[in-house]
């Protein structure tokens, strides 16, 4: 799934037979109190927002909760939104902030909260890992990364945003985005090498 930050393509108005509405028209409809507009906004961008939340939190229920919180915050703040901007980077910015907050909350929880072995994010086994479970190894390695590095990595490799679009989402310079992404890759590569994952 390739994300289009303009919001018109890439899943626009999925499941709706009407003509796709661009971002400015959608914002105008939301502000005018059109009852269909919130559903249109959610259906158009829920895949992008939920995907980011899922990759950041690596937990289905937490991702759903954060996605819901993201859309509610967006709907509440729609009156102050600059309608000349595209909606998707703004939604992703809100979602990224909510994910960071959720991760910080999770870090403050006592260890007993992860008593369920299915929720353990880190593979407790030592030594050689399963070479066929590359995606699982990558997700476990991501859990060790700083949230900023993880966010940039997910936006680039999972949401397929460019450096400029990521800089727009995280409100940082492009150079910072490149630095964080390269550091994230270096740490992930080191983790995979230590785990004995080779190709």
């Amino acid at each position, binding site marked *: 799934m390739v994300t289009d930050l303009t919001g018109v393509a890439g899943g626009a108005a999925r499941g709706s037979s009407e003509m796709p509405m661009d971002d400015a028209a959608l914002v105008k409809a939301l502000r005018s109190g059109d009852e269909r507009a919130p559903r249109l906004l959610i259906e158009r961008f829920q895949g992008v927002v*939920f995907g980011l939340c899922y990759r950041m939190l690596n937990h289905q229920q937490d991702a759903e909760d954060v996605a*819901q919180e993201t859309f*509610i915050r967006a709907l509440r*703040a729609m009156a102050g939104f600059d309608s000349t901007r595209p909606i998707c980077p703004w939604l992703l910015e809100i979602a990224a902030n909510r994910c960071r907050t959720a991760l910080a909350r999770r870090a403050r929880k006592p260890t007993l909260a992860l008593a369920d072995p299915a929720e353990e994010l880190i593979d407790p086994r030592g030594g050689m890992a399963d070479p066929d479970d590359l995606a699982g190894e990558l997700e476990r390695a991501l859990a060790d990364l700083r949230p900023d590095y993880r966010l940039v990595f997910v936006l680039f490799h*999972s949401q397929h945003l460019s450096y400029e679009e990521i800089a727009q989402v995280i409100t940082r310079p492009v150079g910072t985005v490149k630095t964080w992404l390269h550091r994230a*890759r270096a740490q*992930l590569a080191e983790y995979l090498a230590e785990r004995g994952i080779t190709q």
Partner: protein
Amino acid sequence: MNCQDFERTWNERIDASSSPAGKEGTSIRAADDRRALLEHAAACPTCRPKAAGYEALEAAILAWGQPPAPPAELANRILVAAQALPLGRPSLSERSSKPLSARHPAYPSIHIRRTVQLLAAAASIMAVVTVGLIARVAIDRSRGRIRLAAAITERPTGPASDRSGVPRLNEALASATEATLDLARSASEPAARLSLQLLDASTEPDIESASRSSSAISVPSWDSFTPDSAAAVATIQQVGDRLASGVRPLSSTARQAFSFLLGPAPPKPPTPANPPAARGA
């Protein structure tokens, strides 16, 4: 290729493989880059494990795939949650046409607000009544004190008030003032006579002469005694004369005790300074 180029080339390679255009196939440049990376990894023991890790990462990203799609009921759940909460600022037309409780379910309804208003009004009335009762009790107590003062002076209270016969406050105050002045007059004149007798007794050698001299001083009556009258001046002059004539010479002890009143003290003789050799001895 050095170690820095090694890192940069690997990142460029992963960038290209992650982009849609880079996934289409390997170009000649990518093949050259891969050959250079392998040569550097073979020659550099520091970068050799990094090369294995970057190769694993490249494969893991490709195996990572897409995140799962959101559940079908997520949109409905978000809409229900959004409708349960007040969303942003309403439009001007909505603000003017609908009541606040209708726009925001969290805002209390009109019945609750009316109940709160009634309770507030009742509380205000209770407060006013309480303050009035306290003020009434205080006024009654002050009137009782005025009646008591009028009874102590034992004087006619003058014309009674119009309705209840209770003397007015200014009449009671005037009566109390007059009684205080009478008391001062009756107590001051004997006190003045007694003071003169004590003064004569302390300055005359015997009691007979004291009684004689005391009779020589005429104490004016209270009514004629005003500070600037001739009688007052004459009385003060007589007291002064009697004091001056009766003063005895001070004894040596008294002179020594009150010598500071007689004149400046003689200068002290200079104290000899201790010689440095005596210090610490």
